[in-house]
């Protein structure tokens, strides 16, 4: 095979740049410009599912252009087309529901600011639990529907009797005893399911019966501490039942409702009758317009018949809930419930309740906290958008009742925070007067604190409020009570006072929580305290000057919690720190915090967690600046490296930071390093050089070597730059075939190609070392590429060789395309020396031989396509970089052209365009020889 000599084309980069550049056109305001933002207003005349008639008009600010995105779509976009073809009933339903929603918005006032019941649900279930055994007493087995079709025409008494007999005959267990709480919950869930099943299979009477039986469970107050949770579970079932009620009001629906109401009215027992009727309250609107407004007061009165105060208050809570959902405008009912509740309030301390508590072995302080969920809810419903006067009246009436801690607590939980905050001193007075025995006072202070976190008390009262409150809080003996209360008040303290008061509070918390390692049980609260403090102190120098802040952090002794806290602090720092800092207090504290985070990393740490920690530490490193004291800055980076050596992204950040530092120095010295700065820059370079090998990611290392080498070059550290490049070259053989990217194994070749191309661009300007041969770096790299085990079926190696050819052509130019200031590249070193050029051309020949060899091996059927495209790309390279006045090169290019077209694999359009380009180029001076070439390049017509 003939060896083709290489002759580079001489390039005049300046002239080429000038000729390639687009002509600048001045632009008047309002002229069309393709990058100007386009506003599209689309108006559809017909949008129904008749595709043909769809028309859309688009107009844009620049009237000449149509928005390319909207014009792609054929008139209507697929989503709206789908919507238009959707079944009209669904559409009507949607419209109906939206209309209903609007109607509701009009006449009701329940907005998003009303905390819905669903929010309370989980909390109640989590809080009111029991380990005692529960029982469910049902007349009807949940899985058997045998009595389901018995007509309600029989009198209730007879029916019950019959069912009892039935049950007896089948030997079914009516009373489920000894259930654990979880069994109980499961059983209720089963009932809920059988309710749905019964309804779905049209056994409406059975459904109703299930609901009645479930409601009956609410009259059972054994295991009283579970009652609130039981209430939640059972009312869930009632909600399910409510969803079944008809939506539209026709005669049949009306008749069905009427039937139901008759059936419900004949339920013998009061409590199920109440709950079932309340659950389908909204059906009243089908019977008459005033149905709901008549029914609500009647149900309210009905609750008076419930003797047990706990059962009764939950019944009221349920009625208020249903009332708020169905008819939020009927405020009087809510108020009536509240006042009725106050009237029966004394019952809580009556004999009946006391006897019951004795029987169950429940103390008053654990009995009273069963009330707040229901009371808070009732109070919340009433106080929602209520006038000030009503709230004042309610408060006054609560005041009048003796032993009103419970009431006071609910008032504070439910009323508007602003209302409470402005009367803080009154409330503190009332809390002080409360009887200690029933309801714990620290809960009252907690509730008050919660309000003060949301709304501000009058300026003049603020300090007094804090003093009064803290006086009580600090006396709390039980660490749990203490911390629950203190946690809430920290917010108030941070909001209105300076670091001195915050410091005092933190000190007090430390004092209370340290004995007996009480902090171990209160990490969540302590974490909240830290969060609140950092939320209010955005200035970290102030934050860390709070003396007790770091000692406070020391209480987090469980590692996972400590790391969480550290993360919060760093997160806040990154978010709020505006200016770079060198404040030693901040640096010391945050280095400590970051070190804590870093030290938590071990072999089991998840990648995500590492990434998060690295992000936070990097954020810190970026914010540290010693200004012009570069040496201090470097020693900070040195210290950081020793501290954070286990987090690769941090090390990467440090290397980038040091490189930046070197470039900063260069900028300050305007490129002329003094002896001192030159030494400093070398220190920076050395830092990078010894840090990079400790990284694991191969491409991270390669890119950092290249990048640091560029920085070294820019700072005239030539031998250091050589070292970086040599290191990079010797690393290339280690690149594995597959690398892990985001948890997936991917072939590495494309990454390697990308890196090498980047590397070549740098190598252009790296001057040869005086003691090594010509182009020793390029040669070394070529050897490595030659020896690298490439994928069998890939052309990457050849693509790289093509790039090498480009590099070598660029190197043979008289003046290079770019330079580094104050670094003499090979162009000025050799000054176009013929020996250098000969060496260069020899290299080119070797590379070309390799390429041609490879093209030959592709002459097999399955590889023809690759041969064609590689051939064309080689052709293009010669066209761009080679001197085609050389006959051999000229002949080679013609051969390649034919090769590319030989098997009909070439894309005709590309070929046509290439030919056009050649003809265009031939018009330029010095390029006339291309005219002749163009004649020798036939276009193959597809047959």
């Amino acid at each position, binding site marked *: 095979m003939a060896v083709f000599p290489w002759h580079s084309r001489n390039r005049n980069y300046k002239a080429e740049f000038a000729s390639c550049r687009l002509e600048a056109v001045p632009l008047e305001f309002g002229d069309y410009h393709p990058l100007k933002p386009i506003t599209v207003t689309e108006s559809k005349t017909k949008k129904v599912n008749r595709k043909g008639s769809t028309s859309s008009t688009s107009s844009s600010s620049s009237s000449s252009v149509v928005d390319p995105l909207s014009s792609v779509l054929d008139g209507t976009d697929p989503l709206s087309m789908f919507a238009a073809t959707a079944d009209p009933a669904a559409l009507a339903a949607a419209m109906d529901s939206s209309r209903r929603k609007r109607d509701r918005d009009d006449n009701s006032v329940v907005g998003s600011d009303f905390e819905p019941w669903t929010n309370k649900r989980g909390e109640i279930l989590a809080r009111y639990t029991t380990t005692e055994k529960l029982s469910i007493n049902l007349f009807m087995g949940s899985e058997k529907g045998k009595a389901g079709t018995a007509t309600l*025409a029989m*009198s*209730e*008494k007879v029916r019950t009797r019959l069912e009892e007999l039935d049950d007896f005959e089948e030997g079914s267990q009516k009373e489920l005893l000894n259930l654990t709480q979880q069994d109980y919950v499961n059983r209720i869930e089963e009932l809920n399911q059988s309710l749905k099943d019964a309804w779905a299979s049209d056994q409406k009477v059975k459904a109703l019966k299930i609901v009645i039986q479930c409601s009956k469970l609410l*009259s059972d107050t054994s295991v009283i501490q579970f009652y609130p949770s039981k209430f939640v579970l059972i009312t869930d079932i009632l909600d399910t039942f409510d969803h079944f009620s008809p939506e539209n009001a026709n*005669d*049949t629906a*009306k*008749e069905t409702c*009427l039937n139901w*109401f*008759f059936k419900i*009215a*004949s*339920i*013998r*027992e*009061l*409590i199920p*009758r109440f709950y079932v009727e309340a659950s389908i309250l909204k059906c009243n609107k089908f019977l008459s317009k005033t149905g709901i407004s008549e029914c609500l007061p*009647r149900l309210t*009165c*009905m609750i*008076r*018949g*419930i*003797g*047990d105060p706990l*059962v009764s208050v939950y019944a009221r809570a349920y009625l208020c809930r249903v009332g708020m959902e169905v008819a939020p405008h009927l405020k009087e009912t809510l108020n009536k419930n509240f006042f*009725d509740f106050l*009237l*029966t309030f*004394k*019952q809580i301390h*009556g*004999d*009946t309740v006391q006897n019951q508590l004795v029987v169950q072995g429940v103390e008053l302080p654990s009995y009273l906290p069963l009330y707040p969920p229901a009371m808070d809810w009732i109070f919340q419903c009433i106080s929602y958008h209520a006038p000030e006067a009503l709230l004042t009246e309610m408060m006054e009436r609560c005041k009048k009742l003796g032993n009103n801690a419970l009431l006071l607590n609910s008032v504070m939980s439910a009323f508007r925070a602003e209302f409470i905050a402005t009367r803080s001193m009154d409330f503190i007075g009332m809390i002080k007067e409360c009887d200690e025995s029933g309801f714990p006072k620290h809960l009252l202070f907690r509730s008050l604190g919660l309000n003060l976190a949301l709304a501000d008390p009058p300026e003049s009262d603020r300090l007094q409020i804090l003093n009064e409150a803290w006086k009580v809080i600090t006396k709390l003996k039980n660490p749990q009570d203490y911390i629950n209360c203190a946690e809430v008040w920290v917010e108030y303290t941070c909001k209105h006072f300076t670091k001195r008061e915050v410091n005092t509070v933190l000190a007090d918390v430390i004092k209370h929580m340290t004995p007996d390692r009480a902090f171990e049980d209160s990490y969540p609260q302590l974490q909240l305290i830290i969060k609140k403090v950092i939320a209010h102190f955005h200035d970290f120098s102030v934050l860390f000057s709070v003396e007790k802040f770091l000692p406070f952090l020391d209480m987090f002794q469980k590692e996972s919690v400590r790391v969480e806290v550290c993360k919060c602090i760093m997160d806040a720092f990154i978010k709020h720190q505006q200016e770079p800092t060198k404040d030693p207090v901040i640096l010391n504290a945050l280095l400590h915090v970051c070190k804590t985070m870093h030290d938590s990393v071990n072999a089991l740490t998840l990648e995500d967690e590492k990434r998060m920690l690295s992000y936070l530490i990097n954020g810190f490193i970026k914010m540290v600046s010693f200004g012009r004291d570069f040496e201090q800055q470097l020693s900070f980076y040195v210290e950081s490296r020793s501290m954070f050596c286990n987090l690769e992204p941090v090390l990467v950040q440090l290397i980038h930071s040091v490189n930046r530092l070197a470039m900063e120095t260069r900028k300050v010295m305007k490129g002329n390093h003094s002896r001192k700065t030159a030494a400093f820059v070398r220190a920076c370079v050395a830092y990078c050089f010894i840090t990079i090998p400790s990284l694991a990611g191969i491409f991270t290392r390669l890119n950092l070597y290249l990048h640091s080498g560029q920085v070294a070059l820019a700072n005239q550290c030539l031998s250091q730059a050589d070292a970086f490049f040599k290191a990079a070259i010797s690393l290339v053989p280690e690149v594995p075939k597959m690398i892990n990217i985001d948890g997936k194994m991917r072939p590495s070749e494309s990454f390697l190609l990308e890196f090498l191309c980047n590397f070549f661009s740098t190598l252009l300007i790296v001057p040869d070392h005086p003691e090594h041969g010509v182009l020793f770096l390029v040669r070394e790299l070529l050897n490595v590429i030659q020896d690298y085990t490439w994928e069998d079926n890939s052309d990457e190696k050849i693509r790289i060789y093509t790039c090498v050819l480009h590099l070598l052509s660029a190197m043979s130019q008289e003046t290079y395309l770019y330079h580094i200031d104050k670094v003499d590249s090979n162009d000025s070193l050799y000054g176009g020396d013929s020996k250098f050029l000969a060496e260069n051309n020899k290299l080119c020949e070797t590379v070309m031989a390799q390429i041609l060899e490879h093209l030959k091996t592709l002459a097999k059927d399955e590889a023809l396509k690759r041969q064609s495209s590689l051939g064309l790309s080689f052709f293009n390279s010669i066209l761009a970089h080679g001197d085609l006045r050389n006959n051999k090169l000229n002949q080679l290019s013609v051969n390649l052209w034919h090769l590319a077209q030989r098997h009909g694999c070439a894309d005709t359009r590309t070929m046509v365009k290439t030919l056009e380009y050649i003809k265009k180029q031939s018009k330029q001076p010095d390029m006339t020889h291309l005219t002749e070439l163009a004649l020798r390049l036939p276009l193959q017509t597809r047959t």
Partner: protein
Amino acid sequence: MGTALDIKIKRANKVYHAGEVLSGVVVISSKDSVQHQGVSLTMEGTVNLQLSAKSYTLRCDMKRSLLAKDLTKTCEFIVHSAPQKGKFTPSPVDFTITPETLQNVKERALLPKFLLRGHLNSTNCVITQPLTGELVVESSEAAIRSVELQLVRVETCGCAEGYARDATEIQNIQIADGDVCRGLSVPIYMVFPRLFTCPTLETTNFKVEFEVNIVVLLHPDHLITENFPLKLCRI
């Protein structure tokens, strides 16, 4: 199968008054043609006269059945007697119950002390309207277990030997459960069941009357009943 019969009456609530025309349609749904020897409508009025020695029961419901070959579909509807003429006058009743007001007590001394007050808004009741009133437990030594309203139908039938009288409980409704708050009025409210009540009827041969009992259960085991005769009418 395939063939189904259905009767659809025009009025959804199926309530008619004497002298009105009952109209509607018979729907025969079938996949293919059906042979028949005519469709006939039969109406059957059953006033359930159960001939046990004691009870007469008057039911205001009637049955109507339709026969088409072997297919039968029955559909119940209700006939309300014509509204009564005459003016409705409410007749409120106040009551007080203490151990002293009770009759029929064996050992009055064993009874715990209590005082119940209340009123019924009217003992003349419109059958479609609920019975309403209030009850206040002013005081009670013993804890209250339950307060119930018991609706009783009294049927009297004259016959050769004299007359037979039978009282049946037709509805029992709890209005208070547990030891209710003293001094707070508890509502008395009862809907008259549609199928078991009719206007009070008095003829020479038989009478249908209604009464309501207020039943108070006290701990440990006391039962106090106060009886009020009612007069039901339909307007």
